[in-house]
């Protein structure tokens, strides 16, 4: 067995949401093939949404992902409200954004501290890391807890919140409940700023990608619950044109569909894209932290996505504080959403990237068609491309090291394989 032709395998890439497999084939010193195999058993959401009532959709789509249920609820609401010609604005829209901030905070803290940081510090997981750095892990858990608390107050619970409905919310919180979150959020803000400084000091491999970057943009604020799709190379289109610009294809090795930009090729969505496209709308403390971390105008090193997530956590906390300070309970928790025969489109920024939904409604509100495009399947082709180039530049490394580095490279994207997968299982085959 030589370095040019050899095979490695690791059963079970850990610390990702869901399970999948990775196959790298090296032949004659060249990377012949890279496949991120997503084999989460399909759950057929788009199939069984057909025939349901239009008001049932957010509770059902939440169950696609336990880590980002609010993203699925609010993309669904956006699409159905669009179909019915209803706009949810004012304070109810602010409360939805606040709920979404909670999801960003808990999801990012989970990824930074429990899933990703152990790679940089050489631990198998956060529990192992806590033996040497207990207070650091406790700091991460404290940030995560505040995000969950925000989701509990507005959503009822952190996993699969129960308070989101088409047209608004079921219940609006009294101001006192939100005010009680101010002190914990302020402490979390200080912890989140420390987190940026901490992760900025990690060792990052020299590696850059050249993917086109796609994110929603909402001039005036960092886009979360709404916005217009835009890329860093000047493509702009309406959410309703999403399917004209994003082509999804099925590939044999994956139960997730692969996406590309029509006539342009692979692209990337998620924190790196959002940061590049919306950096100017970051809050003051978040921008300062980003500058101190040396992120610059854009960040193209996927390993540094942990720094961008930390900056976004600072932003989400500051934004939550701003929304709570301005909060006056609205008169009604929701507006009526009478059904009509129409098609509606919705997109929001899930922690992992742009999440698109489209529903076709019958006149009585029965769902006739449903389409959901999650961020991880959009990123799959770009993750594979990164892996290919990353491995090619490091073939001199030992099998052990290279395998570890590849796992880390996959975790850069915080792939939510549950929105698509099962067991991320890394096999590397080096052959003649």
């Amino acid at each position: 067995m030589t370095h040019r032709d050899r095979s490695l395998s690791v059963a079970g890439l850990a610390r990702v949401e869901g399970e999948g497999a990775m196959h790298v084939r090296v032949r004659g010193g060249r990377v012949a093939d890279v496949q991120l195999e997503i084999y989460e058993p399909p759950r057929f959401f788009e199939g069984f949404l057909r025939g349901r009532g239009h008001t049932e959709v957010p509770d059902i789509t939440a169950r696609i992902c336990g880590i980002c249920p609010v993203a699925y609820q609010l993309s669904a609401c956006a699409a159905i409200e669009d179909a019915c010609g209803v706009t949810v604005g004012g304070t109810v829209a602010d409360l939805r954004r606040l709920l979404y901030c909670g999801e960003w905070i808990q999801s990012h803290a989970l990824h930074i501290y429990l899933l990703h940081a152990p790679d940089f510090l050489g631990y198998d997981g956060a529990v192992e890391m806590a033996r040497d750095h207990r207070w650091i892990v406790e700091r991460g858990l404290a940030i995560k807890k505040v995000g969950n608390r925000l989701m509990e107050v507005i959503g009822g619970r952190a996993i699969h919140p129960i308070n989101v409905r088409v047209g608004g919310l079921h219940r609006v919180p009294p101001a006192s409940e939100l005010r009680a979150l101010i002190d914990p959020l302020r402490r979390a803000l200080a912890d989140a700023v420390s987190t940026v400084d901490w992760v900025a000091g990690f060792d990052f491999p020299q590696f850059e990608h050249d993917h086109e970057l796609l994110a929603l943009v909402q001039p005036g604020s960092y886009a979360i619950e709404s916005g217009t799709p835009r890329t860093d190379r000047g493509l702009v289109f309406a959410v309703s044109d999403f399917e004209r610009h994003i082509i999804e294809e099925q590939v044999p090795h994956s139960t997730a569909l692969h996406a590309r930009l029509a006539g342009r090729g692979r692209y990337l969505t998620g924190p790196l894209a959002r940061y590049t496209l919306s950096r100017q709308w970051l809050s003051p403390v978040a921008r300062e932290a980003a500058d101190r971390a040396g992120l610059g105008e854009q960040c193209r090193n996927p390993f540094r996505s942990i720094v961008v997530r930390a900056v976004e956590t600072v932003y989400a906390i500051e934004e939550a504080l701003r929304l709570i300070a301005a909060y006056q309970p609205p008169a009604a928790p929701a507006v009526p959403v009478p059904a009509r025969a129409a098609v509606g489109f919705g997109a929001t920024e899930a922690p992992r990237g742009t999440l698109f939904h489209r529903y076709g409604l019958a006149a009585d509100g029965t769902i006739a068609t449903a389409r959901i495009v999650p961020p991880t399947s959009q990123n799959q082709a770009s993750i594979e491309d990164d892996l290919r180039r990353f491995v090619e530049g490091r073939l001199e490394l030992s099998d052990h090291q290279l395998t570890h580095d590849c796992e880390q490279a996959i975790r850069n994207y915080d792939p939510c394989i549950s929105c698509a997968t099962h067991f991320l299982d890394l096999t590397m085959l080096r052959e003649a």
Partner: protein
Amino acid sequence: MGTGPTLAVWKFSSCDGCQLSLLDCEDELLAVAGRVRIAYFLEATRATAGGPYDVSLVEGSVTTPHDVERIHQIRDQSKLLVAIGACATAGGIQALRNFADVEQFRSVVYPSPEYLSTLDTSTPVSAHVEVDLELVGCPIDRRQLLETLGAILAGRRPDLPGHSVCFECKARGTPCLLVAGGVPCLGPVTRAGCGALCPAYGRGCFGCFGPAATLNPPALVARLTELGLSPREVTRVFRTFNAAAPAFAAAAAPEEAEV
């Protein structure tokens, strides 16, 4: 590694939310990790140890031929097997396929359905192997999870309710939506454990904890009908996250159950 029993966490078809409940125990996670030896928990650590395991938590439902093999292997290696969440205890939302034509679903979602390997049904863990304990809910309740882990460590049975959500509404002082509010609510037939969350937020319970230990669905169906729900709507309210739980499946389609 700590001392104490070995703990393994396994995933089948699911959203990851129930195993996330363990990581969501922010105040207790490190303490729990000090009392058990985490032998297999891929969402949390890449370090894995082989079986046998003292305690296995199983999330998700069985939906592929490979899942069937795997759940038997896990059972063989586990002293105590705990099924966690609606997917593992009732088949989950994906069990809606049990009432439909999977071929049709496949082609709706995937342009080339021949690449897929799926069973026609989504089934709970108990349909395949013996299960020692079940924690219900979509998602499970974090307090119930901690109670269960604490009980296992102490060598006693966990204190898990069998009564309905109605008891929790009374305890919480929430006025009855079904009687006083005229709002459709599955509280009378749904197992307690969530703290009667939905009624407290002004909406009817939608049954995410599945059937209570004793229940009378026909009486509830009569009230739902009185409130204006059509038979089709009644079927829908019972067919969500615990659609394949026998009591809910029967309530959703009484004419089929009688056959």
